[in-house]
């Protein structure tokens, strides 16, 4: 099993999520994050003092899937999260050694 962690633009979430759902990936967890990378923050001001806003709002999606599905998930996300502008985000693939469904205590693939 792998965890596919994708950092994407917030405004793309719905499209990505719908596409994943249609592709059969129903289970996922999201959280609100902030990021910096090639795309930087803003330099703004407040009450006359300049301030650097270091990060941009992003959303992180985490899907744990079996090894074979990784490529599929990556391609679905890439297709639907892309705008072509700097800041579209990244996908990371992380190994998962085990999974448990709390409700049933099923383990491994069955837990997903």
């Amino acid at each position, binding site marked *: 099993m792998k965890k596919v962690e994708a950092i994407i633009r*917030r*405004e793309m*979430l*719905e499209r990505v*999520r*719908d*596409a994943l*759902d*249609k592709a059969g990936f129903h289970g996922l967890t*999201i959280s*609100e994050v902030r990021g910096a990378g090639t795309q930087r923050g803003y330099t703004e001001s407040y009450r006359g003092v300049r301030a650097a806003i270091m990060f941009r*709002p992003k*959303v992180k999606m985490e899907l744990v899937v079996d090894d074979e599905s990784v490529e599929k998930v990556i391609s679905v996300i890439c297709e639907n999260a892309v705008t072509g502008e700097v800041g579209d985000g990244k996908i990371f693939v992380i190994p998962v050694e085990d999974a448990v469904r709390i409700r049933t205590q099923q383990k491994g693939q069955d837990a997903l």
Partner: protein
Amino acid sequence: MKTTGFNMSPLMRLSAVPRIVPKRWLAALAGAVVAALLVPTAAGASELTLVDIEQAVDTLWVVVAGALVFLMHLGFTMLEAGFTRMKNAANICAKNMMNIAVGMIAYWAVGFPFMFGDGNSFLGYSGWFLSVTDADAASSFSSLDWAGVSISTKWFFQVVFAATAATIVSGAVAERTRFTGYLAYVVVLTAFIYPVVGHWVWGGGWLADLGFLDFAGSTVVHTVGGVAALVGAIVVGPRVGKYTNGRIRVIPGHSMPLAIAGVLVLWFGWLGFNAGSTLKAAGVDFASIVLTTNLAAAAGVVGALVISRVVYRKPDVGMLGNGGLAGLVAITAGCAFVDSWAAAVIGFVAGMIVVLSVVGIDRLRVDDPVGAVSVHAVCGIWGTLAIGLFGTAELTEGLGTAGLFYGGGLNQLGVQALGSLSTVAWVAITCLIVFYGIKYTIGLRVDRMHEVDGLDISEHGMWGYPESVAGSSYMGTPGNGAS
């Protein structure tokens, strides 16, 4: 002269057709208008009499005071929303909105007639839907004849009181009560339960005959609302997770700034609540009521601070707010009957009482998220009794006797206790019937899962704070993969 269609264009017409018109809001104005037209600045001779002006001043004060009391509904909304969780914030706002709306309709239709209509010493029964002209008002609402203002004015000032009594409950039963069940309760309270007590005390009923004193409603409004809140909180039961494994758990409200802003709005409105209860401005030193009201509120905050630093280590912010409200509730009955130093004492004691009462009621496993029972019922009773202690001979002369501390003996205290007790009994019994009635018919409490999800989403289909509760980007169009 050019005829215009402006706001007061009727006046224009009058100058063209200068005869007596029966028009409601122009009564007695004709002459003045002619004069005003002839002499635009303030030098002309008015044909309004001194009594007309007196009535205008009285009306102006009562309408403005009533508007301040109306704003107390904003205060209650903010207070209750602040003391509850984010997931129920829109629901509490909706309940408060419905409270004033439904309460107004119900009180217009039957509540005001039950309260002030002519009837017997238990209940009034005339003037349904306010369908009286000012000229006839005497025959329908003779208990209010002493006040010179129009019947619309009287209704407005009274309806905002009725809605206040009702809204006290919404905080105590917050975060778990079905929307429709709450609506049903509001109708019954504003249409009947509250007006009955009001009739007893202010509508020429039996408590009035006994010399029971309640200037602006520690009993009529606050004890009624507070006892209804207690019954409601008991019947609906505690929130999921409030008392588990034999422990009392903390479920903090989501916004103290909102709650404290609500307290300040309530304090502001209370100036109208108490000082406007003169129903009169001319010849009445209503500012002395403003003085006692403010001192009691201020002393209530200080009382709550003192006791909370003694009992707990740190001053609880919400408790400071409750303390101020406790002082206000307590002085409501006696604001016209006690000296200013006594007002400060009454408020200070109320502020201490409320802190202990909130803790005590929680220990009794009655879940009252906002402290409504302690503030309104407990301090309402304290304030009512306090007249029997602090009422001065001078200020209560001819209405009752002086309080215990002013050499009046226990007489007035006894009457006050009787009035409080009868009110508690009446409200407790009728509200038990009402809340159990709702419970076994349309339903009083939401499902457990709905409660956990929050009433905003389960009762209204959307959170009150979608971005804070559910994140910025959670929402899609149905059918796009969502079920």
